[in-house]
């Protein structure tokens, strides 16, 4: 190593040059993208909830399931092989001739969702207004949320989704996990979920939808009249879906 190094560049110069180069190449990108989305967006002062009156839910009625299929485009079939956003369950009391209770079970939109805490990519997330959703842009299809859900609410889309134009009103694609969205696309337009609407049309009116944070909403008034319990209350998840008439 000789002492004569006339063209020696100091380390400081190299680092400074590199930083300048990086800044110059990044600067256009910083100005390129300015996302100013219109619309008000999810409001954190609102908490959407669903109330199910099981005394008005007939055991042989599947109107809510049909409505959800028509609205969201998931196929019919055996639940273990096909997606199932909502299903009817009939619960006995344990006695042989005991009374039965029927109820629809869907994503319970918990305030402390186990699916959100186990999702590695933040694909499973809770929106500001309480709706628990799957961000398909981030979902890698690892199915860990399906393991974590106590209600078996989530399904894996394991076959290609065909004919988009004729199917549902919410994006769904192969290789991701999906579940009841509380018809978020309808809520954002100011409408109510499809299952609630159809249940009312059928005359049962067993489903009530509304803002749990608004003391004057229909759902809060109904909750004041009769006790409602969540499913698996022992888990402490504080779901947005409550059930009346379950013993």
């Amino acid at each position, binding site marked *: 190593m000789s002492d004569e190094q006339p063209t020696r560049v100091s380390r400081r110069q190299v680092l400074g040059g590199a930083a300048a180069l990086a800044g110059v190449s990044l600067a256009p990108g910083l100005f390129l993208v300015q996302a100013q989305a219109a619309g008000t967006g999810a409001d954190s002062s609102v908490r959407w909830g669903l109330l199910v009156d099981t005394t008005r839910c007939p055991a042989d009625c599947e109107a809510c399931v049909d409505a959800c299929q028509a609205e969201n485009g998931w196929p019919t079939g055996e639940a273990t092989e096909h997606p199932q956003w909502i299903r009817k369950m009939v619960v006995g009391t344990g006695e042989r001739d005991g009374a039965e209770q029927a109820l629809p079970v869907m994503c319970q939109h918990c305030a402390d969702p186990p699916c959100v805490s186990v999702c590695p990519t933040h694909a499973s997330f809770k929106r500001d207004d309480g709706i628990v959703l799957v961000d398909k842009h981030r979902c890698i299809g690892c199915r860990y949320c399906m393991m974590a859900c106590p209600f078996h609410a989530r399904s894996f889309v394991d076959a*290609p989704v065909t004919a988009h134009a004729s199917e549902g009103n919410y994006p769904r694609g192969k290789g991701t996990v999906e579940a009841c969205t509380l018809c978020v696309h309808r809520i954002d337009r100011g409408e109510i979920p499809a299952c609630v609407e159809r249940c009312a049309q059928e005359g049962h009116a067993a489903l009530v939808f509304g803002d749990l944070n608004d003391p004057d909403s229909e759902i809060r008034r109904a909750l004041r009249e009769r006790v409602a319990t969540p499913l698996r209350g022992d888990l402490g998840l504080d779901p947005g879906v409550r059930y009346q008439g379950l013993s």
Partner: protein
Amino acid sequence: MAARIRYRYLGREHPFQWLAALAGAALVALGGAATGLYLITAGHHVTGMDNQVVWGLPHVFAIALILAGSGAFGIAALAPRLAGPLGHPWGRLGTAAAIALLLGGLAILLLDLGSPQRILAAVWLNPLSSFSRNIALYTAFTAIALIHLGALIEPRMRRYVGITGTLAALVALLLALNVGSIFGMLGTRPVYGGAIMMPLFLASALAYGTAAFALVWQAVLRSQGQASPPAATAWLAMALLTSVIATAALLVLHFLTLLYQPDLQEAARFLLIDGGAYPILFWIGVVAIGIITPTLLLLRRPARARGRALVGASGCVLAGGLAHLFVVIVGGQAIPLQIFPGREVTGAGFDEEAASYVPSAWEALVGLGGVGLALAILLLALRVLPLTVKHLPDEARSMHADSDPVTRSGSEAGEPAPS
């Protein structure tokens, strides 16, 4: 001590055998990759996995490989400290085997994802999720283990062997515990027993890792025409025996905790008695083959010094490990969730009855593809890196004739000139 160990490259004397082995492993790995691509394009409906059993055979293989990788590094790092000069030669081979096993397991996990192309966008990870902690630990382990391997091989980096080895061992330990937390931290599946999954998987990692490393080591010795040195073999066999007994003890604890809780007794009974395939796999695969047979094989001191007993026991431990993971992972999912505890329920199929899961050929291909990849990586590493030892320390005074030609690997590995 290290100066007297001369390392060599495997495969120079018998290149065709090495190439044949590599071709076989690469073919299996390619088969797994092709199947993974098929699953991505066709969708998982072609597999036996459904909405109830969401993790099937690929996860069984993947977790077995990942645990084996963590455990193999544990042995490679612990051996020089606990076994003294006997353990020194295992450092390089064990580290390379650990990295290969881990990468094979990771490949399976990636291939089994529903949308793996989106993982590139997942820079924002959720630290609460065991999966994302695992991603951080896999990366850390691979990086530190590679540096450790470099430190072992390159004489100018020798002084970093201690620190990198300790760091890598720590990360391997955390990795095994975190894999247990994937299942243990699911409040909705109490059949996993909660926190006990973590030490159980740590003990399993040591057992599978020791078994996998023992098989690799014995295969390397066999291919070099060397006999298994008695003292080293006995030490490794003792390590395997200890980890098998530890795993068995924790397994007993796991099921005891289930049986003690009235609401979990049905789940325990399903796995142990009336669940169909799962009790069979448990009692024959896990208990008879995975625990009792290796224990009997290695119980007596003279048996431990023989390579054949070690190989047999290792194979049994790995088979039992696969069976255990199948019972834990798949059996745990097959049990219906108790949304209404104690009540009679009709609803979707998965509410009413236990799932019947029949793995498809695709899942087996993906799982074996990962094993093939691990083998291929290991074979390549054995060829291009000086990992294997010509003369084991306690062999130096033995009567084995030195029939192997002196290779250049001694000087290329930076060893001082032979005396």
